[in-house]
């Protein structure tokens, strides 16, 4: 088992390395380098050449890639082009806001989606299942900003119960924090809830259709026992994968939610960096999100082989 986990860990590292090549390649080898981006429209050829020399852009791309990668490993994320501040500082001050949003949304959406998914699967074909299926199907296709704006319109603009701005202050008490964070957390939860619930349902149902379940059902076991003892252990690994996938999917959801509610978070920083074409900042943010994503997937894998021993012996 440990060997499989180690192999998987090595694969994860390899993927991360490939991802770093993609990020570096996409942002550095393209026409219009960083120097041109700094100088903007009014650049002269001499200024461009001088800046390129100063920034070491005349060196081969491979050499610069290893410099950048080495910097990342040492925790040196470079300097922002737009603000001239170290990227690490800018990220540090924003990270907590994003993390708090994602953790709160996960704490709400994961248990809810598991409960609803299982309920739906147990009543497959029934009225509850059909209603839930239709609702989630519709919810999946609704853009996050629509959910966010509707919630904002109803609860912040019309009813004035909650705050439309998620910008919290350190001196806020619990109630003020709740008012500020309720809407963004709800929006983010909605975005992943439907997905996770459907995948939970389908992975449980998938197992219901397998021969051993049919056997157990024909033996006359009660439905509850069928679900809890026979279906759930086997369904756990796809469900864990789904959870990890959706937590990482939150990365995309968070981008929209932070913009709608004006959360000063990491993704807002990334979007601003993209607008200003602040390459070092984009690279650093992308690598952070990529690492989180890969780690979550790895975690899902480890948890699922712990839940299901069959996966420890690949064919």
């Amino acid at each position, binding site marked *: 088992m440990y060997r499989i986990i180690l192999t998987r860990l090595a694969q994860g590292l390899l993927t991360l390395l490939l991802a770093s090549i993609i990020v570096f390649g996409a942002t550095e080898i393209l026409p219009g380098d960083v120097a041109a981006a700094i100088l903007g429209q009014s650049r002269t050829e001499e200024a461009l050449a001088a800046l390129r020399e100063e920034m070491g852009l005349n060196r081969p791309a491979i050499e610069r890639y290893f410099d950048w990668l080495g910097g990342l490993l040492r925790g040196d994320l470079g300097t922002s082009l737009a603000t001239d501040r170290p990227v690490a500082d800018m990220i540090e001050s924003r990270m907590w806001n994003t993390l708090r949003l994602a953790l709160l949304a996960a704490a709400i959406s994961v248990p809810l989606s598991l409960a609803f998914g299982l309920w739906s699967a147990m009543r497959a074909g029934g009225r509850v299942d059909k209603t839930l299926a239709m609702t989630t*199907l519709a919810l999946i296709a*609704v853009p996050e900003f629509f959910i966010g704006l509707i919630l904002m319109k109803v609860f912040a603009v019309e009813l004035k119960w909650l705050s439309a701005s998620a910008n919290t202050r350190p001196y806020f008490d619990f109630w003020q924090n709740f008012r500020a964070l309720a809407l963004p957390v709800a929006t983010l939860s909605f975005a992943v809830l439907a997905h996770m619930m459907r995948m939970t349902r389908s992975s449980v*149902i998938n197992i219901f259709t397998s021969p051993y379940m049919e056997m157990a059902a024909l033996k006359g076991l009660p439905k509850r026992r069928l679900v809890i003892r026979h279906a759930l252990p086997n369904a756990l690994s796809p469900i864990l994968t789904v959870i990890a996938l959706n937590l990482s999917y939150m990365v995309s959801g968070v981008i929209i939610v932070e913009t709608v509610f004006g959360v000063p978070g990491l993704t807002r920083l990334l979007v601003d960096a993209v607008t200003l074409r602040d390459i070092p900042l984009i690279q650093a943010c992308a690598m952070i999100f990529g690492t989180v994503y890969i780690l979550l997937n790895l975690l899902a894998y480890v948890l699922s082989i712990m839940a299901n021993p069959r996966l420890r012996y690949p064919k």
Partner: protein
Amino acid sequence: MSDVSDHGAPRASVFAGLRLTWTAGLAGAILLFWLVLALFGPWIAPHGEAEIISGTTFAPIGEGGLLGTDKLGRDVFSRLIYGVRTTMLLALITTLISFAFGVTLGFAAAILKGWFDVVISRIVEAFMAFPSTLLALVVIGAFGTSITVLVLTVGLVLSTGVFRVSRALGYDIGVMDFVEAARARGEGTWWILTREILPNSMAPLIAEFGLRFTFSILFLSGLSFLGLGVQEPAADWGLMVQENVGGLFLGSSAALIPAACIASLTVSMNLLVDWFQQRQQGETVLEKIDQ
């Protein structure tokens, strides 16, 4: 599992033959409505795409234009009609790009196998190790915002998913007996691909196309909402939401209307795909027990 389509019920009309549920029927009608608007929009819209019709910004519904005016005093109704074109056309192009790349490489990997499969799969995996929005942001950050960059980026990002699906389909169908039989007959790779694998993977690929189209609308309008997609003065639904968010606090629904339109389009598409997939499947064990 019984294949329902074998029953050969007498078909009263085309619609009965489709066995539409009411949700699928409604979804189809909505899609048709937007399609007609997209095709004949310029003849229906009372004002131009970027024409300022009123000095009042964020005029409420009924004043100024049919659906009010936006942050610059443009007619929301007209921009909405022009917007459906941009939104649907861009989504269609990106989906076609993703299928052109994804299906070709996916089937090639499934048929050629060996090092080609390994290399392509590894590369796709590395791309998939990144949340798709993030990948698009990185590329847009490097290239800047233009329609060409937008369409190519989103198309390529979406093609990784299409690659996975078509590769899996190719592998699954490739080991079926009828393909073995064709190989034993001495048919060439191209023949097997076009006569055996492609026809048999049509249904899942059509469903995948619908899903990717939905996803692509969400993706593009999300980017436009962030201000990184379609740029003014063009009318795009995602962009319209972004422009008019500020009006929400002034009692204007200029941001909510296009957002609701995007939702109507994507929800309908999803319902239709679901109906299509349901038709292809049998029932689960629990459904059988309950009967």
